[in-house]
């Protein structure tokens, strides 16, 4: 039996003004993947392909051992899916939705659902129509979480939430993570949310996966190095350097392949290392996207995870 929650292999989908190309993405069971991309990068399209809601033009999609979209019904019994643009029925109450879900899913955890009602401060008798955006999102998540699915696919669930509601939702998702068997794909353009929750990070831009690694590797390998240089200093072009800015006697290097030897290399060239700064996930994301776009513009091709032109 596969230890992958899902596996996208060579998946492509072409629209008139957008192309999702050659997506290769895997998630180990029990892992939490943050799926980061700007608006229109292809996050939702990828997720919809995973859910069988969109058929890929080419490639293989396997979710929890089921081929998608052919076996989507079997797969969906085990998947909890919530997206930013998903709505419950306006006319019905939260309680009706809970009963409806319970009538479908044998694994529905009524006690957990009641606990979530309290934590999210929701009233079962309340109609969806009268709920705020935050309450609607929380009600939607309740329907997904109380099913205790093997795989949670959350497409920008925190978008548009106020800080308090976001905090509540993220806290609940943190609790979900205590279950080692559960896998989560969490898409967002909010890197702060991803950084809190996820152990795997995937960046997508313009329909291409530009990076996919575990979070620690990401954070450990990216650094911003500030150098003092003089006019004669010629900085070498090193592998992994995605940006090199010089202004007068100062230079700022952004690298995705940092190690201690890198500082020594610059020192040998006559530069003085003033600071080696740890980068936030947001800074890494922006740098990675810019670097990828520059590579595409310069060569018409993409870069691989090591920064080499493919």
């Amino acid at each position, binding site marked *: 039996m596969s230890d992958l929650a899902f596996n996208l292999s060579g998946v492509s989908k072409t629209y008139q003004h957008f192309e999702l190309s050659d997506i290769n993405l895997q998630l180990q069971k029990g892992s939490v993947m943050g799926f980061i991309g700007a608006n229109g990068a292809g996050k939702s399209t990828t997720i919809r392909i995973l859910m069988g*809601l969109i058929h890929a033009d080419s490639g293989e999609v396997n979710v929890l051992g089921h081929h998608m979209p052919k076996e989507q*019904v079997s797969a*969906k*019994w085990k998947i909890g899916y919530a*997206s930013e643009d998903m709505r419950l*029925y*306006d006319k*019905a109450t939260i309680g009706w939705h809970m009963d409806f879900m319970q009538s479908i899913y044998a694994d529905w955890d009524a006690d957990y659902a009641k606990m979530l009602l309290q934590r999210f401060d929701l009233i079962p008798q309340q109609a969806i129509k009268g709920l705020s955006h935050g309450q609607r999102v929380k009600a*939607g998540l309740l329907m*997904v979480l109380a099913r205790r699915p093997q795989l949670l696919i959350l497409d920008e669930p925190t978008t548009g939430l106020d800080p308090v509601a976001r905090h509540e939702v993220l806290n609940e998702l943190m609790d979900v993570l205590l279950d080692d068997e559960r896998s989560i794909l969490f898409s967002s353009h909010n890197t702060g949310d991803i950084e809190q929750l996820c152990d795997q990070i995937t960046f997508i831009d313009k329909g291409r996966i530009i990076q996919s690694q575990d979070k620690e590797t990401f954070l450990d390998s990216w650094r911003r190095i500030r150098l003092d240089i003089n006019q004669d200093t010629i900085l070498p072009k090193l592998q992994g350097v995605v940006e090199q800015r010089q202004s007068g006697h100062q230079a700022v290097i952004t690298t995705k392949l940092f190690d201690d030897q890198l500082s020594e290399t610059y020192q040998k060239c006559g530069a003085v290392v003033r600071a080696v700064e740890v980068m936030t996930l947001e800074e890494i994301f922006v740098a990675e996207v810019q670097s990828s776009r520059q590579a595409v513009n310069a060569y018409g091709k993409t870069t691989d995870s090591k920064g080499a032109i493919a």
Partner: protein
Amino acid sequence: MNALMIKKLVSIDWYLNRLPLTIYAIVGLLALVLLNMPSIAAFYVGTVLIVSAVIVVGSHLVFVTLVRDRKSQTLAFVMSLPVSFMDYTMAKVITNLVGFLLPWLVLVLGTLMVIHTSETIPNGLMPFSVILLLELFVAHVLVFTVTLVSESEVWAIVVTTICNISVSLFCFFVANLVGIGEHMQATHAVFNGTFAAVIAIELLCIISLITMTFILQSRKKDFI
């Protein structure tokens, strides 16, 4: 097909529309009472009421079960359930067929009963009435299948309007049809070959529209 989930999806639509459907049923029953009253005025009011109720039920079903699913973004919720797009299609076809057929059958039976029992209305109107009432059903099937396949509110409105305008043209056409028109004022109903042919064409339209819907839906690659 996924019978359990199709049943669940149909039950959602019935639950969410139970109030308007109950109101339409009451209007239909009221119309039947009027049709049975020994007054020409009551007959005309009853006829207009019941035909209107059937047309409104059809439009209501299309807009609340198909158009609103997309507009109010509940389709994503439905499609997150263990259903395929063909299950969704089947559920919507069942909802729209059954939801329309119930009041429509009352209309057909009520109309035939009134014509049969009334001393002032000639029985010769029966074939014409059946053809006309079946046309309402064909029109409803056309509207909901076009809406289902096109996923477009605009198309739903356009086809609904065309169908409603076409009712009077269709009446005119059938009333002037050789084999139908000349028997309309007869004291007994004449169910001849022309009648059978028109009914067969109408039924064929219904079957073709539904079959085409399933074929076109099965070829779709993007559902949301």
